């Protein structure tokens, strides 16, 4: 494998990235967070391993928004494995390779074991947390995209809409400009980008 990452999901939506092994893995997780689609999202929704051995030339095209930037980032084969404990779905393990090709049976079996170990590890990290608090290791090590939620709060005031709608606007803006929602959020927080309530458009700020 070229890289791996562990993504937390809640319901059908990505919530954060516990760890990534390199920049490409990080982009793969950020893209899924921005777009709400990709191998991890499908692995959790479908409750099974999702395998794409040739991302650039897939047998069945899927993930129309996710695939082009993921390929540009350097992913040629991509695999998502659900992080489950019994019926509890925590998120997904994502693996990628910089060349196309399927997983061998051994690699597939290893990935299932790794996903199971990772699921227990996540539970372990939260198990001893104070009530209402995130586990210390998760708090420090996981990218929960807090800046995106801060920016949602700002945009909700700029546009006079709910924070939920503001997050949708941030994601749409990122998608339209082919960027990551985390990057758009950073510009909103710094004041370089503002949403205009008159026409809803994002413009360069101060």
């Amino acid at each position, binding site marked *: 494998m070229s890289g791996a990452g562990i993504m937390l999901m*809640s319901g059908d939506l990505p919530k954060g990235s516990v760890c990534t092994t390199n920049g490409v893995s990080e982009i793969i997780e950020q893209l899924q967070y921005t777009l709400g689609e990709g191998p991890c999202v499908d692995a959790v929704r479908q409750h099974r391993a999702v395998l794409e051995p040739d991302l650039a030339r897939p047998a069945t095209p899927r993930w129309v928004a996710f695939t082009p930037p993921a390929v540009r980032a350097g992913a040629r084969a991509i695999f998502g494995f659900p992080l489950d404990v*019994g019926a509890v779905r925590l998120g997904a393990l994502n693996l990628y390779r910089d060349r196309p090709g399927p997983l061998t049976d051994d690699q597939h079996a290893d990935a299932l074991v790794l996903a199971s170990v990772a*699921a227990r590890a996540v*539970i372990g990290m939260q198990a001893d*947390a104070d009530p209402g608090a995130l586990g210390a290791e*998760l708090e420090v090590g996981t990218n929960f995209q*807090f*800046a995106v939620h*801060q920016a949602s*709060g700002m945009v909700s005031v700029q546009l006079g809409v709910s924070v939920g709608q503001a997050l949708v606007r941030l994601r749409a803006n990122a998608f339209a400009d082919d960027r990551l929602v985390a990057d758009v959020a950073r510009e909103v927080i710094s004041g370089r980008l503002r949403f205009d309530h008159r026409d809803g458009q994002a413009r360069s700020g101060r």
Partner: protein
Amino acid sequence: MSREALMTRTLVKLADTLVDDFDVVDLLTTLADRCVEVLNIAAAGIMLVAPEGELRAMTSSSEAMRVVELFELQSLEGPCLDCYRTGQPVVNNDLTSDDGRWPGFAAVALATGFRAADAVPMRLRRQVIGALNLFRTEPGSLTDDDLIAAQAFADIATIAILQHRSALEAQVVNDQLNHALNSRIAIEQAKGMIAEREGLDMEHAFARLRNHARNHNERLVTVATAIVDGTAVPGSLDPLSH
């Protein structure tokens, strides 16, 4: 159905814990009923240890057996208790020629019509969670094959129960994780709203939020949620004293 087919079906059934409506009592009832059928014995029952550490009679295939098991738990003597305490099978106990190990138990069991009692542990490695009890109305021994089958049933059921418990724990922890995360997200969203409305950076927006929560003896997440859902406006937060 052949004995072999029945055994296989029983093992598959006992191993099937991933279904959404998995129920421990259903599993134990199946285990007891199938033991009676496959081993051709009078009755089977299961005792499991409760979280507080005491053994409880969970299910019995007959009411007569239930009475004997409850007596066993009250008097704290009998093959099931010995089996649970040692983690080892306690087998081939002919109650008519009782050696005095369990005088009270033997008397009650005989009076109820049972002549022999065996118990195999519900155990995974070092963790003993209970015992599977097998009662017969004829004296004599279970065959080795019968004991192997009984232990296999007990093993599979034990794994199923432990997996189920661990999934329940994971569910609770995952719910706590989501709850904690949603609280944090509300706080970050409120910081953004306060920052934008009041012209503050994130640090000062958070200080304003925290200061107000402290002054009014409210939880941070309560104040944040009020800001986010619009029941309070950022301007109504106490100003920071400098």
